[in-house]
């Protein structure tokens, strides 16, 4: 996950030279950004269609799938960090949306937040239904997952995760209908 633009650099009413002021401003900026205004850009997604079947993927679909997969992860990261189920409908539908919404509901209840720092995805299309109505994907994601209790960081680890995803077409994009992490492919 990358940071979006952050506004404000803090204010340091201290005695001392401009160097101290600069250090203070930099520290304040970094802290402000890390705590207050983490927002996600779409992560990098490498897409492999060499093992797809039974239908071959059209060029346009081959461009849209990694784009929409990346957007879905971007949405997921913001929704789980800010506990915003209202964002999920942009990219998720069906069981995937229901389960993520349930996660957020229980996070809100317990005062928890989860931050996904996304270091990229290797996405492979595995099954493309003959009628073009569903695509099953294997995703190997490089993730840093942080769990917060309020603002208290209770856990952080960086891990390679495997996900199975199912995408179905909506009006002008593909939606994630199923998203499950699995021990291996």
């Amino acid at each position, binding site marked *: 996950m990358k940071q979006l633009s952050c506004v404000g650099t*803090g*204010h*340091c*009413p*201290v005695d001392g030279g401009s160097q*101290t002021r600069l250090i*203070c401003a930099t*520290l*304040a900026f970094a*802290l402000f950004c890390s705590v207050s205004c983490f927002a996600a850009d779409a992560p990098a997604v490498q897409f492999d269609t060499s093992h797809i079947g*039974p239908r071959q993927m059209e060029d346009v679909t081959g461009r849209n799938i990694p784009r929409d997969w990346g957007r879905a992860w971007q949405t997921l990261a913001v929704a789980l960090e800010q506990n915003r189920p209202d964002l999920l409908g942009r990219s998720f539908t069906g*069981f995937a949306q*229901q*389960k*993520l919404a*349930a*996660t957020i509901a*229980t*996070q809100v*209840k*317990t*005062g*928890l937040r*989860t931050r996904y720092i996304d270091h990229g995805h290797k996405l492979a299309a*595995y*099954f493309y*239904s*003959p*009628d073009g*109505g*569903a695509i*099953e994907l294997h995703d190997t994601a490089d993730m840093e*997952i942080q*769990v917060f*209790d309020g603002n*208290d*960081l*209770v*856990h*952080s*680890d960086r891990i390679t*995760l495997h996900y*199975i995803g*199912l995408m179905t077409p909506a009006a002008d994009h593909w939606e994630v209908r*199923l*998203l*499950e*992490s*699995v*021990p291996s492919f």
Partner: protein
Amino acid sequence: MCRILPAVCLAVCLTATVSLAAQDLQLPATVAAGSGFAIPTSGSGSATLYLVGPSYAAKRQVQLGEKILVQPQEVRSAGRYLAIVRGGGTSQSGSFYVVAAKSASLSFLAHPSRIPVAQRDGVIGVAFVFDKWHNLVRRPETVDFRLAAKDAPPVIQSVRSRDGVAWALMNSGHKAGNAKFVAALDGIEETRVIQQVAADPCHLQIRAERNAKGVLVETAPVRDCSGNPVSDGTVVTFTANGPQGLSTVDVPIKKDVAQAELKIPGPATISVASGVVMGNEVRVGGQP
């Protein structure tokens, strides 16, 4: 603020360090969805358990040195779960995977809903296998796809699912009418209805007869190559070519036949077509 900032930064770093240096909890590698289990702990005093997984996040007080019971309803969704126990100045953590339980439902996509008869590989069935909590069942399972029309033996294909999905291409039957398309697995059945309709006309035949007003042309009952009556409303085109030029009339089939009255006084050759299918030609003489 600058006096506070370094302290905050230090606190954040220390928290992260404690987290990174956390001991591992003894957790099973995988658990079937909806199955409870116990997590042994060491030490004494109270601690906080955090359990974070797909569709669930929990925080509750536990006693160190005692087993922590994870309830079946806490691990219903398949995926990776994090368990963290913090207390007594230590942090223990670990992860485990919940995998799908027994197959309980099929998500069945059938395509198309309407198809001409005798289409090779024209009927598509895709079935996703889920357990009772909507987790994808990745274990291979045998899904039976059955296409059955009235008064015809059903066609069955058995397919092993892979990564939760099984699919089949089937030929449409030879008889027009509704066909039941079923995906079945261990007593679970999902049914869709596929409407099989007559295909293109076959052996299109016309006869023509001159009368006082012109020439009456009429097809024989229009049927496809399997003998099914072609649907009413299907357009048949009559073309008359004679000394007076070319004239064309489009007529829908009504009660199996199409007929038209062509106002041509002179001799003509009349042909018939429907879609890409051509029929016979007949010649008629001029008016006496």
